[in-house]
């Protein structure tokens, strides 16, 4: 690992495509400064997004920076059983989870086992068919929904209110478009738990929109 990586000026707009892991990793291990800058530029935004989802806005930048230190320390031991990106994101996830436990000891990260039903059981008859079915929404496209600043605030509040792991899964899947297999590796949850977390998160956001749209 290099003793120091000088912070040189780089042109703001130049963003060459990231080389393949097989080409990139030896360069990083050799202390290639350009390779470091490329990796940071490629993944730092996503790292902050993930850290923010788990630990919240206030600590996200710090967690992402801590994770970079951990990444560079662990790089010589990286066994390449996953892509570099997945491995880096798993380090971010673990750093964020540790930080969350440290900051708020009462927070449980394992919210997959919650027995709370997705939809209020009172909305169903005894035969499990709708008693209080969903009403029509005023808006019927994403653009129309997002055009309302009030509704955007409702969605943001619902996202903030999600348990950390639900927020992380829905952020990576629906906002970043990552596949479930990678997400489950990054967050170290089983595929079935990942799916439960995703569905619970989506349903809570849907509920928030429903409350706003049917007022």
């Amino acid at each position, binding site marked *: 690992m290099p003793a120091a990586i000088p912070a040189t000026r780089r042109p*703001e707009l130049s963003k060459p495509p990231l080389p393949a892991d097989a080409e990139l990793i030896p360069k990083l291990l050799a202390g290639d400064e350009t390779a470091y800058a490329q990796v*940071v530029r490629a993944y730092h*935004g996503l790292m902050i997004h993930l850290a923010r989802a788990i630990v919240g806005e206030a600590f996200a930048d710090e967690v992402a920076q801590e994770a970079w230190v951990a990444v*560079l320390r662990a790089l010589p031991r990286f066994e390449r059983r996953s892509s570099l990106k997945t491995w880096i994101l798993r380090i971010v996830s673990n750093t964020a989870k540790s930080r969350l436990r440290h900051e708020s000891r009462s927070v449980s990260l394992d919210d997959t086992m919650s027995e709370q039903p997705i*939809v209020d059981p009172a909305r169903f008859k005894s035969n499990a068919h709708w008693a209080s079915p969903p009403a029509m929404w005023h808006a019927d*496209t994403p653009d129309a*929904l997002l055009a309302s600043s009030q509704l955007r605030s409702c969605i943001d509040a619902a996202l903030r209110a999600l348990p950390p792991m639900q927020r992380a899964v829905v952020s990576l899947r629906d906002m970043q478009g990552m596949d479930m297999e990678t997400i489950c590796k990054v967050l170290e949850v089983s595929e079935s738990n990942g799916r439960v977390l995703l569905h619970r998160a*989506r349903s809570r*956001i849907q509920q928030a*929109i429903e409350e706003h749209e049917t007022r």
Partner: protein
Amino acid sequence: MSFMPNCQDVTKHSSDYLDRSLSRWKRLGMWFHMMMCVDCRRYVSQLQLTIATLKKHPKANPPPVSNEQVDNVVKHVCQNLKPDD
């Protein structure tokens, strides 16, 4: 879940239905139920709209990483990595 799900089942499995991660048999059962149930059709299409809205949410596209951020990360790493790390 039996072949033909009830409405409560539909709400439980709607994400998996939309993500095509249900078995073909369960998927077919959900499809048949929704052919007959306007309420569940609406529920699932609203979930689909919710997902599409999250995809388009402004926070889904964070601004590109600036040179300043790259420099801050590099500086932080330099300060925290010892030469023998």
